[in-house]
Each structure stands twice: as C-alpha cells, then as structure tokens.
C-alpha cells in the first residue's frame, strides 16, 4: 500500500469494507428514492447520494463508544456508524421492527447504544447536542469523541455559533464536520456564505478549521484522524469542511431548477465510489471482479433489507402513547 | 333639602312598622310624627283599653272568688293607680319603638308634615319648618273619634276614647252612644267597677258588621251583667242640669235618661290635615288606594285608618308592609285574610267571610256551629259559655270564615287564620290533633261534625 497514505489503524480490509459500505449507502438511497417515487413510503426523504465518502471516511476512524450526531440527510452517517440497512428500511416503512419502531421516520433514525445520537430534522439542531455529549465525556473523563455532522446551511443557524463557541471555551472533545454539499435546499452556498471556505469560520472561535475533499475518502480519513488526536489530547474541537455535492434534489419534489446540468455532471465525475474503486484496483487491493461482487453484495443486502422491512408489523393504537416519557 | 328613598307620615302601627321594614330592606327612611310614637293604638286605643280591661277582669274574678271557694271579705280598687299602670305600660312600649327607630337608622321628624304632589314634605317643628324630599311617600295619618253634632252635646261634658282612659273618678252612671267594638269594651271596663252602664245603638243590633249569632250571644251576656242595651235607638239631644239628661227615641217613642257621664263612640274619621294640597282621590271621606296601597299619585301610598276598611292596627301594619314591598317592585295578588278581635267579657273573634258574604260571592256554603257548654276545659275553668262556628264551602271543604265567642278566643283566632292562609280544608282540620283539654278542640268537633264524623256532637 505504497502511496495509500492512510491512518495506520486503517487496513486493506477496512478499505475494502469501506468500498462495499459506500455502495450499500448508495443502493440504500436509490432504493428509498424509488419507493418514495412509487408512493410506497410515506412522507418525504433527503438522500446523500454523492456524499458517501464523507460519512464513510469520518466514521471509519470511530470506535463503538465514539458518538455522532447526524442531520436530516443522515442515512449515510447511520450506515457508516454501524446501523444495519434492514432496520433502517423498516423504519422508513413505518414498521415496529424499525430502529424507532416506526415512530421516528427518515429524519430521526438513531441508535443511542451504538453511539449514533440521532439524525435531526432541525437544521443545526444536533450541534448543541454533540457539544453536550462531549461535555459528558470531559466531565466523566470518558475517552470518547463526538463527531457532529451538519451541512453548509446549518452554519448560518444561531445554534451552530453558540455551540461551537461553548465547545471552544470548554475545550470539549468534539469534531464539527461540515459536509458542504454546495446547497442549503435551494440556496447555493455562494449566495449564503460570504467567505469561500466555511472552515475559515473556525478561527473566530479559536479552533482549527480544515478544508478537505469530501469525495476523497482517504483525505477524509486523514483529517478526521488528526482531529480525533487533538480531541483526545484535550486540545478541544476541530472544524472540518468536506467539499462535496448531493446528486439528488433536496427532497423528492425538488426539480433542481437552481443548478445546471453541467455542474451536476462535473461533480458526477468526482464520484467518490468510482475514485476509491480506481485507487484500490490501481493499488491492486482488489480486482475488477472483486469490485463487481462487492457491489452486488451491497445491492443484495439492500434488497434483503426491503424484504425485512415489508414483513415487519405495523404499529397498533396501543403504541401511540408509549415512549413519551421514560 | 335632604332626600330619602321613603318618607312616612304618621308614627302609629302602620307608620313605624313600614318604616322599619323599609329600612331593613336597605332603603333610607324618614318618619314624621306630630304627637307620640305608637299613634292612636298605643296611646289612646288598643293598649290602654286592653290594659284597663285586665284590671276589670281581675276585679270580676275577685267578685267571683266565692265560686272557687275563695273567701274575700272586702276589697277596694284605686282608679288613679290603674291609670298610672296604664301610662307606665304605654311609656315602656313607646320607648321600645323609639329604640327600634334608632337601631334601624330611621330619621325621626317630630312635627306635623304636609305633603305636595312633587313629594316634598314640609314639617313644622315648633317655630322653624324643615323640608325633605322622598322617592316614595306613605301616608299613615290615622284617624280620630267622630263626634256628631248632636243637639245640646256641646254644652254637656262628654268623653271620647281619646279622653276616657284618663278619667279621674268612676262615674255612677255612664251612657255610651254607639254599640261598636270600642263602646262595648269600655262598657265592660266600667261595669266591673260598679258603674251603671247604658248603651245606645242606632242599628238593630250591636257590632252590626260581625256575625249575627255572635252579636246576639254577646248582647245576652252583657245584659246578664247588668249592662242596659238600647238598640234601634236614636239620640235626640242632650241637656245639662245637675246630671246630664239624654233624650232618646226608639220606634217613634221618646224617652230620656239621667247619667253622670257620656261617652261618644260612634266611629272614627280620617286625619286629613296635611293632605290638602295633595291631589289624591277619595272614597267617601277616606283616601282611595289600589290593591298595592298606591293612591292616584304614583309613588304616594296610603295605609291604615286613613283609607278606611278594617281600621285595625294589624291591618295598618300589613298594608304598610305591602306598600313597602310594592316600592321594591313586588306586588301581592292575594287579598288579606284579616282576623278581628273584640276584647269584651266574654271575647268575640272572627276571620274571613260571614255566611251572607260567602253566599253573595256564589259559594255553596255549609257552616257548622259547636257550643262550648259541654267543653271540658270550659267547664273546669267555668268559662264554658261561647261557641265556635266554621263557614265552609261544600265541594272542596274550603274554610271561608270562622267565628269564635268565649274566653281567650282573641288568642285562638290565629289558629283559624293560619288554616285559611295555608289553604287547609275541613279534612285537614278534622285530621289535626288538638290538645285536650282545651277550648280550641271545639274546632275539631266542628270539623268532625261538618264531615258527619263528630265525636262529642
């Protein structure tokens, strides 16, 4: 693995697993999109096709105890943090076998025991929560980090400013990962943020800010690794800006009028999965056939997930009022 | 000029009762009284007569003591002491009324008041005059004895009920002109003191407005006590020589009698002083009012002897209360059930209609009379002369009227009044338990007999 400069804890198996994981994420999102289009899944959804590398890249460095908070476009984070597609799909089908017994839905899938503190329907809603998680780590002297995923849009929310500042002044072990997919719903980041790189905002809170190619999983792993070291050494939080692009609309009824075809095709060229595949093959980590079979395994896992979801029982009237209070 | 919710002219039983009731119901009240509180009733009527009648009763009992095995050799009585006791009773009651007025914050004006149509009252107190104004006014001026100008009357000394109770010495012979309630009661007083009493009545019987049987019974009793009663007799004239000579005429035959003293008690006339610039309507000499005691002028009411009718103290009070209620917007529909009492020996009491009145109203009348002669308590206390009569309506047994004659009936009549007021019928009266032995159980006997279920009758 000559020029595959990856953090040392990352082995070739990890890379292969990551390649398959990215396909799992993509097929999950495509299948979900298909089902929503057929009206078989209820409500709406926000898909992270094209952003697989930032989720997989960051979570590759995390242990089970480490915690993440996610966004309304969080299927990728979920899978990357160890959630299984079958329970996720069951949740989207509203079945009691889903992660949240069918009560949470696409924007709120969470698995607290597995460290996934949950997706969040409120833009920037999860950022203060991540800071809180980091506060617990500091106060109880637990050696875990908390990764906080959010989009470029969230950086204009009050909660982002207040939480990052609080983490900074208390030197909390939290890593703020801004997946800058260029658009906050229909607002292009160029119209909504004056500065070129969101990472430069970190300086105003006295914490380091790093720009990374969100579609290069290797680079994402490296910058995440550095941030984890800082956090674990009590040097406080880091802001990572992952430049990436979401191939699909904001949600199912988005005709993407706000951007051009060329721009989309330009970013499709930087397909994170294709780039990892070419890298692994060129580094002879895997062969073309292995890549094919990994891809098929991923698709199979998703189709099984759909079957599992469709068998799951629907909740009954009695479920309505449970779980309101602990 | 001060303003009151209610101003009342006259402090008699009509005036002071309505003043207190109005105050209790939250109205600001003024009471105008020229003479003494309590009016005729307290000072010159009911109270003095009942007080002296008690004296008379005791004298009679002393005279009767032999019947009860009590030997009294000789006794005497002191008229001045009796009059003094009478005045002491009146004083005590008058102070009572005064303190009631104070506790109820009623403003008392001690003077004669005249009222005008704008409801302004001018009161003369000594020399100065005070003016006061009121939303509503109740006229309770009361009445005074009526003295007909019979020929020669002016040049002989005579009493009216106003003066007779302050008499200095017991007359040997007393002639009473008028066989009404007042005349008869005074007759009983002086008869007990040994005065020879003669009564001159124009009508064919005494107490003409009451039940005929009661009148006949009373006349018989009074005669048995030595009181001479001349009915259908007119007074022609009076002449003064050493004694007073009274010319009378009955069935065209003129006679005359000598007497020491004369009492005029032929009726009472309303005190109209103070009403001259008030354009109220009159009915004969009495002020005309509607069923809620209101005169022709809105907000001006009249009650008591001033409007005629019963001319009784409790009638005046009841009429006063009805007027006050009307001022507060409430109007009573039911007409009065008014008991009447005569405190002669024995007494007469009645309530409701006589038989004639009932029949005139179209009721199918069936009445029932029961004598007291066989009554246990009567015999025991040798008070068994008298009767109870119930006048009832055939179909429903509605009690239309009750007449009682005998001892203590003035107390018992309230039983009959309450029965009629609460609309009890003969069945309930018969069904009710009366204490034995009592005179009042005669009511039970009458009801039982009326239902053909009599026990002793």
């Amino acid at each position, binding site marked *: 693995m000559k020029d595959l400069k990856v953090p040392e804890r990352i082995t070739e198996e990890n890379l292969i697993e990551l390649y398959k994981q990215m396909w799992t994420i993509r097929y999950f999102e495509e299948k979900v999109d298909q089902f929503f289009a057929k009206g078989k899944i209820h409500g709406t959804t926000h898909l992270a096709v094209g952003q697989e590398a930032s989720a997989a890249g960051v979570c590759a460095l995390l242990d089970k105890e480490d*915690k993440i908070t996610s966004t309304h476009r969080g299927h990728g984070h979920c899978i990357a943090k160890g959630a299984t597609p079958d329970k996720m799909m069951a949740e989207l089908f509203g079945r009691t076998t889903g992660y949240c017994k069918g009560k949470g839905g696409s924007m709120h899938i*969470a698995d*607290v025991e597995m460290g996934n503190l949950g997706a969040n329907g409120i833009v920037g809603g999860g950022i*203060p929560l991540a800071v809180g998680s980091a506060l*617990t780590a500091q106060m109880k002297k637990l050696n875990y980090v908390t990764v906080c995923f959010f989009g470029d849009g969230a950086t204009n929310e009050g909660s982002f*400013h207040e*939480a990052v500042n609080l983490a900074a002044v208390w030197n909390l072990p939290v890593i703020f990962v801004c997946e800058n997919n260029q658009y906050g719903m229909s607002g292009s980041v160029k119209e909504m943020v004056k500065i070129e790189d969101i990472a430069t905002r970190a300086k105003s809170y006295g914490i380091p800010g790093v720009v990374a190619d969100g579609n290069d999983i290797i680079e994402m792993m490296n910058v995440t690794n550095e941030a984890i070291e800082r956090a674990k050494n009590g040097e406080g939080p880091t802001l990572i800006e992952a430049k990436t692009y979401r191939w699909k609309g904001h949600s199912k009824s988005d005709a993407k009028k706000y951007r051009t075809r060329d721009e989309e095709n330009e970013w499709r060229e930087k397909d994170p999965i294709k780039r990892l595949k070419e890298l692994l093959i060129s580094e002879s980590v895997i062969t073309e056939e292995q890549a094919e079979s990994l891809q098929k395994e991923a698709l199979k896992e998703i189709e099984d997930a759909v079957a599992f979801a469709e068998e799951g029982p629907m909740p009954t009237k009695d479920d309505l009022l449970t779980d309101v*209070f*602990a | 000029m001060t303003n009151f919710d209610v101003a009342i002219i006259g402090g008699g039983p009509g005036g002071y009762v309505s003043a207190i009731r109005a105050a209790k119901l939250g109205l600001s009240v003024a009471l105008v009284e020229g003479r003494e509180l309590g009016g005729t009733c307290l000072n010159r009527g009911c109270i003095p007569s009942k007080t002296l009648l008690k004296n008379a009763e005791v004298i009679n009992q002393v005279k009767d003591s032999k019947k009860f095995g009590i030997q009294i050799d000789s006794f005497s009585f002191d008229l001045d002491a009796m009059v003094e006791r009478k005045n002491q009773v009146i004083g005590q009651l008058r102070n009572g009324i005064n303190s009631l007025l104070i506790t109820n914050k009623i403003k008392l004006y001690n003077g004669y008041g005249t009222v005008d149509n704008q409801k302004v009252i001018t009161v003369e107190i000594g020399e100065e005059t005070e003016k006061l104004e009121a939303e509503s006014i109740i006229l309770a001026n009361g009445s005074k004895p009526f003295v007909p100008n019979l020929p020669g009357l002016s040049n002989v000394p005579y009493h009216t009920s106003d003066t007779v109770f302050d008499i200095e010495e017991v007359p040997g012979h007393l002639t009473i002109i008028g066989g009404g309630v007042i005349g008869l009661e005074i007759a009983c007083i002086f008869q007990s003191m040994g005065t020879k009493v003669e009564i001159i009545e124009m009508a064919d019987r005494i107490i003409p407005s009451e039940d005929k049987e009661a009148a006949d019974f009373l006349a018989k009793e009074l005669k048995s006590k030595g009181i001479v009663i001349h009915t259908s007799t007119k007074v022609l004239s009076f002449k003064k020589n050493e004694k007073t000579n009274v010319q009378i005429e009955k069935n065209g035959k003129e006679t005359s009698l000598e007497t020491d003293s004369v009492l005029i008690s032929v009726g009472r006339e309303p005190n109209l002083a103070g009403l001259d610039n008030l354009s109220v309507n009159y009915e004969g000499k009495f002020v005309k009012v509607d069923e809620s005691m209101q005169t022709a002028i809105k907000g001006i009411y009249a009650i008591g002897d001033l409007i005629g009718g019963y001319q009784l103290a409790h009638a005046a009070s009841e009429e006063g209360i009805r007027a006050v209620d009307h001022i507060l917007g409430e109007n009573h529909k039911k007409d009065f059930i008014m008991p009447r009492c005569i405190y002669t020996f024995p007494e007469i009491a009645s309530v409701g209609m006589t038989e004639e009145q009932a029949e005139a109203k179209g009721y199918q009348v069936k009445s029932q009379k029961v004598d007291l002669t066989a009554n246990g308590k009567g015999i025991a206390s040798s008070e068994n002369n008298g009767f109870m009569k119930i006048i009832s309506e055939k179909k429903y047994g509605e009690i239309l009227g009750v007449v009682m004659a005998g001892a203590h009936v003035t107390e018992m009549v309230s039983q009959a009044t309450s029965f009629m007021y609460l609309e009890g019928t003969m069945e309930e009266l018969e069904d009710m338990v009366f204490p034995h032995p009592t005179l009042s159980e005669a009511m039970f006997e009458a009801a039982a007999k009326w239902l053909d279920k009599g026990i002793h009758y």
Partner: protein
Amino acid sequence: MREITYLEAVREAMSQEMRENEDVFILGEDIGVYGGAFGVTRGMIEEFGPERVRNTPISESGIAGAAIGSALTGMRPILELQFSDFITIAMDQMVNQAAKIRYMYGGKGKVPMVLRTPSGSGTGAAAQHSQSLEAWVAHIPGLKVVQPSTAHDVKGLLKAAIDDDNPVIFYEHKLLYKTKGEVPEEQYSIPLGKADVKREGTDVTIVATAIMVHHALEAAEELEKEGISAEVVDPRTLVPLDTETIINSVSKTSRLVVVHEAVKRGGYGAEIASMIAESEAFDYLDAPIKRLGGASSPIPYNPELEKMHVPQVSDIIQAVKETLNKA
C-alpha cells in the same frame, strides 16, 4: 422544625443531590461566583467548583442543547435559565429535541434534565422579564411542568424533578423566593403529579398555582368570616396533572374557581376547567366554572398597573361569591 426561605430550599435541594450524585451538575448564566441572578446558587461554586457549577456564555439555545446532549449521554444536568422569558430562545432545543428524542428514537435514549427558571411578575422587571409561559411548555408531550408554591414543596419537588428521567421545566416564582416555611433538613421527595389540598372547605373549590395559592388562602380566610368555606387545591405540577384530587374536590363542593397569574386567555386554567367539564364532576357543578388570570396585555412596568395585571385577593373573593349567587 426549622424555617428556611423558598430560595434556600431550592439551593439545599440541589446541593444535597450534588453531594450524593456525581452525574448531577448545574449550568447557566452567572451562576458561579455571581451566585445567580436571584442568588439561588450563591456559595455553590465554592463547594462544588467550576466543573459542576458551570458558568456559560449567554447562549440559551446552545446551553440548553448542551444540557440535553449531556443528559442523553449519561449526565443529569440542572439548567438555570436566568429568566423564564428566555425560554423563547431555547424553545427549539426543548420542544423539538428534548421533548421528542425518546419518542422519536422508539424509547431508546432518555433526557434526564431539569430546566429551573425564575418566573412571574411583581418585581418591576416589566414585559420581557415577568412572564408566566407555563401553558406553552405544558402543551408539549414529553415535557413535565412543575410550579411549587411553598418552601417545603419546592425542596421535595426539585428532588423528584432531578430524579425523573425526563426533561422537567421547573418554575420558581420570584416573589416566592423570600417566603419562609418549615422545611425538613433531610432529603425528601414529593412525587410529581400529586396535588396538595392546602385548605379543606365545603362550599367552593379554588384551584390555584404558584403565588396564587397564597392569594387564594388569604381570600379563603376572608370568605370564612362571611360563612363561606373555601377549599384551596394546589396542583403543584401541571404535567402530569393530579386530575383525581381536583375532580373529587369539585364533586364535593360543586363549585370551581381556577386562578393563575399567567394571561387568562389560553392559560392552563382553561385546561383544568375543561378537564372538569368533561369529567364526572360535571354532574355536580352547581354554578358555571370561573377562571381568573392575567390581563390580556404585556406586563406593564408601572407598579400599580403591574399589580392590576394579576388577579387580586378581592378578585378571588368576588369570583367565589358569584359562584354562590352572593355577589
């Protein structure tokens, strides 16, 4: 038994709990050396140090979110919001995050935290620092709401709130801080959702919250003189609400007057009134239910106007008499 103030009772409840339980800590603005805007946390930083008495930047959304996040991950934070009016800034975190996390995550995950905050008018702090917005949070499934009225109750209820595994909004009325009462020294807990009949009575039930409990008791004394026996019920917690005690009381007295300081329109009194109208007690109502609450205006600055804004003892007496046709 010794007497301490409502404020001392709050501090004592927190200190005693923090001595027992490491996970319990308090965060908020100016709660450290300054001792809290109303002096509730005075002396606590000296005992527990800045680690567990955490002075925060003025970021209600941020610190509320941090409290929720830490609660989700094992801590039991007590968040002091300096004025209950500022809940508007932390509303998203409380309503969309804290209240809903357990339900959205299908019962996995819990948020054991207490948001304590001084509330109510009477201190001349004017419109933005004197509100009573308990009806907002009482409307959100997932949040519990507590309004203690006495020093004894506040200590027991705060203990229960800290022990509760759910987010609890804990309102302390400013004018009550200085009121005294008998408070046991040892720790004790008053269960949430248990009303307290502060005064027995037979003719009318007065349900009152926070400061209004004291006004109701005063009114009841006056009414007693006029032969009217009033029962005063203090719900102590709005969510969960002890409906049973209120229903039994109204069924006994057959008349109900509900009084709270918050604006009458849309106030929690409407919830209590309709709960009664829908309950067994309906058949025992012998007069229309009466509600008293704040006037429909922001809280005025002028002290006289401020007093008028809130139901007075005389208003309670008048309302009671109206239910008895004696007004």
